[in-house]
């Protein structure tokens, strides 16, 4: 009986963690979607900024805004992040294989240039990642104040 109760408790906690992570991912994308702070040219940078939820290396949720209608051309090459799924799944095995992870990511290679550039320095590593942490804290607090 005690083992059964503990298993139920463990399952409840597991479900709660999943809901918190999924809700945070949705809230973060809503923020990105509604905000004009992401540099917009062809929409591809904004639209390729996504949030992934990994649980023990398994991609359980991926979400991103998507409004780009034209490929961003860099050096004559159209950038769409065509191998996005492979990258997402490889990251799960190689970097997020143990435990729960919520990951803010950009699939556009020039995001790094934007992040290190003069006008938007630290945009991804500082501004957006701080917003993700604040959003996660807020949602954890919301769950802490209500019964499921």
């Amino acid at each position, binding site marked *: 009986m005690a083992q059964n109760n503990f298993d139920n408790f463990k399952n409840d906690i597991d479900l709660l963690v*999943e809901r918190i992570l*999924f809700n945070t991912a949705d809230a973060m994308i809503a923020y990105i979607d509604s905000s004009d702070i992401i540099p917009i040219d062809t929409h591809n940078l904004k*639209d*390729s900024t996504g949030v992934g939820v990994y649980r*023990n*290396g*398994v*991609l*359980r*949720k*991926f*979400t*991103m805004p*998507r409004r*780009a*209608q034209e*490929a961003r051309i860099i050096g004559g090459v159209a950038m*769409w992040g*065509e191998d*996005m*799924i*492979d990258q997402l*799944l490889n990251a*799960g*095995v190689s970097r997020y*294989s143990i435990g729960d992870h919520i990951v803010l990511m950009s699939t556009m290679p020039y995001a790094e240039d934007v992040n290190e550039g003069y006008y938007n320095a630290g945009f991804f590593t500082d501004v957006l990642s701080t917003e993700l942490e604040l959003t996660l804290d807020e949602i954890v607090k919301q769950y802490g104040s209500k019964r499921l």
Partner: protein
Amino acid sequence: MKISAIEPLAKLKQALINKGVTQTIYTGDKPSSGLPNEYIELHQNGALRTNLSKMGLVQGFVLLSINVKLLTTGGRNTVRENIILATFDGLFEHGAVINTDGYTFSLDPDSLVYNGGGIYEGYSSKLINITFKKV
């Protein structure tokens, strides 16, 4: 059981074909051009795991993507999306599982990983997690 002998993608592909799925199914062999208007792709999602309390049991996830070409207007072809999804509803409805060659495939409770455009240019995609166990 050798881990190298675990082939959930090939087994699921064959099981789906046997169940009447008619779309082309790729398991790592997708061409870079000339794709059909609708296709399915299977990826392994995460590492294989063994359950030590049940010796010989290997389990994991297969990420199944259903991809449908966008309309000429750029909009989603929701009619085709729903028709293909209905096929999978029939396969996994009410907790149903697919059993084949010692593999058991079932729909993960929170199965929908992604739903929208932008994964592949010119297509809308639904990503669905399917769990498998192999004894």
